[in-house]
């Protein structure tokens, strides 16, 4: 219940279908004030649909989307929200400054024009036509349009897709700055690195259902797997025979072993192969945790349909 009160935006029992395709199925999701919530998932998982529902651009078949406790389509809500969506093409015969001026005038308390230019790193590009910009510059203009209304709540739908590393970091820095000012950000992404760098909380979507949520640390520990790499003369079949080993594979000249119990496995390995060398231990990354979650989910789904 406490979550409901603190939530600046929420989806309640939301089901959204596109014809025969169910994009989201009975989703419950809260966005808490001041956090960065990352929505993570493969293509077609329902990430963009969730954002479209929050923005009032799509209507749910069942359940409801709420922003600031009200219908997202309300004018008073739209003035407090910014959105960066995936756009194939923006009118190309307007200049950068014209696009920004046009959007600023929609809002009652817009950011000053120089602040928008500075935050989106658009200095020197203001007089260029949109059609003449590079991909990264275009994304920065879209980011500028998302923040120019001085929003309390910002939706970023894959904001850094296809961007070079330096532009990605420009956008990350500005997202951190906005969070530092107490604003709330909802971000969808494919990049786990982005989630690790920015997110307070992660929701993993797959096939329209939430399959995991928590901090990125919690998501990682859900798989609780660690990795052992070493050079050994033991055959793979023998390693897989060790009780706590969940998987072992040959990686170039090394063997990679996955286990939730590192110490007993290591003891057994040294016992069997005293000449074992090049030992490395690592925690699973968010990416591995994410892939593991999806793997388990998809295996489960296949079992059910079989």
């Amino acid at each position, binding site marked *: 219940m406490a979550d409901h009160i603190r939530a600046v935006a929420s989806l309640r029992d939301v089901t959204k279908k596109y014809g025969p395709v169910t*994009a989201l199925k009975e989703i419950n999701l809260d966005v808490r004030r001041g956090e960065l919530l990352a929505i993570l998932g493969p293509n077609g998982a329902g990430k963009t649909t969730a954002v479209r529902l929050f923005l009032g*651009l799509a209507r749910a078949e069942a359940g409801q989307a709420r922003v600031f406790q009200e219908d997202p389509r309300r004018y008073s809500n739209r003035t407090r929200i910014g959105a960066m969506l995936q756009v194939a093409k923006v009118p190309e015969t307007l200049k950068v400054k014209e696009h920004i001026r046009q959007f600023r005038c*929609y809002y009652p308390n817009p950011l000053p024009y120089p602040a928008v230019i500075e935050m989106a790193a658009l200095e020197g590009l203001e007089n260029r036509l949109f059609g003449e910009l590079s991909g990264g510059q275009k994304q920065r203009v879209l980011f500028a349009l998302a923040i120019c209304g001085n929003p309390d709540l910002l939706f970023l739908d894959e904001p850094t897709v296809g961007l070079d590393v330096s532009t990605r970091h420009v956008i990350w820095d500005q997202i951190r700055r906005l969070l530092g000012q107490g604003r709330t950000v909802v971000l969808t992404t494919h990049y786990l690195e982005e989630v690790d760098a920015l997110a307070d909380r992660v929701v993993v979507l797959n096939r329209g259902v939430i399959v995991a949520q928590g901090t990125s640390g919690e998501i990682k520990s859900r798989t609780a797997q660690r990795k052992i790499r070493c050079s050994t003369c033991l055959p793979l079949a023998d390693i897989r025979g060790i009780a706590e080993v969940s998987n072992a594979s040959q990686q170039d000249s090394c063997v990679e072993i996955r286990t939730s119990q590192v110490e007993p496995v290591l003891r057994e390995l040294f016992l069997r192969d005293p000449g074992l060398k090049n030992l490395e231990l690592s925690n699973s990354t968010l990416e591995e945790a994410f892939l593991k979650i999806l793997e388990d989910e998809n295996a489960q789904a296949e079992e059910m349909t079989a």
Partner: protein
Amino acid sequence: MSSYATAVPSSPASRSFSIYLTETKYELLKFLRMPAYVIPTLTFPVLFYVMFGIVFNGRQTIGSVNVSTYLLATYGAFGVIAASLFGFAVGVASERGLGWLQVKRASPMPPAAYLLAKLLVSMLFSGIVVLALMVVGIAFGGVRMAPSVALSVLGTLIAGSLPFGAMGLAIGCYAAPNSAPAIANILLLPMSFCSGLWLPLPILPRFFQVIAPFLPPYHLAQMALRLVGAPSIGSPWQHALALLGFTIGFLLLAQRGFAREDTRVNG
């Protein structure tokens, strides 16, 4: 933002006026920088008029007016229809189909500002086309009309942007960005010919005189013809009512097309 003072909020009324003004200004700039729209819109009706209305048929008469005067009314209608149909169909189809309209819909922009800006720009281009035709007609086609008549022809034709803008809007709400110009052309050319905009209806086979009243350009042309003193059919009120009916029909169609947007599958 911490390092910048936010602007003082302006009053809702003056702000909403400034939204409409800004939207119209940038809509106009956007089109002015697009030669692929401006050049055909402004030159084709004038070229056709010079060819069919002045060079070939200028001395003949229809009723009490010469062909140049008759065709001034119908090519004026044609110019207005083309400008409005293309402005809306191509603009809306590409902005909707390529995702730009979503960004605007997520903002607090009043939807009416988007539509009104497009309508005002269509009307401006329509007005320029009609004025250009009048200048050419008066200078080279022996067209004579009182200033008050010229003004009422201009006003009536410009108002014609509304039904054809609505028609373009309907096309824009259904067509894919790449196919919208082709669809607009496929509708515009036969519809204009069959309504007697290129060649006077009285000299066309009877078949055309029967089907013309079912086509919206016919009604706009008849209103303009009556104003220039050429033979016309029906009362202006009938035609205005027919155009209003078409406008409502196209707007309903556009709304249905627009609602389909929500059913598109994406991530």
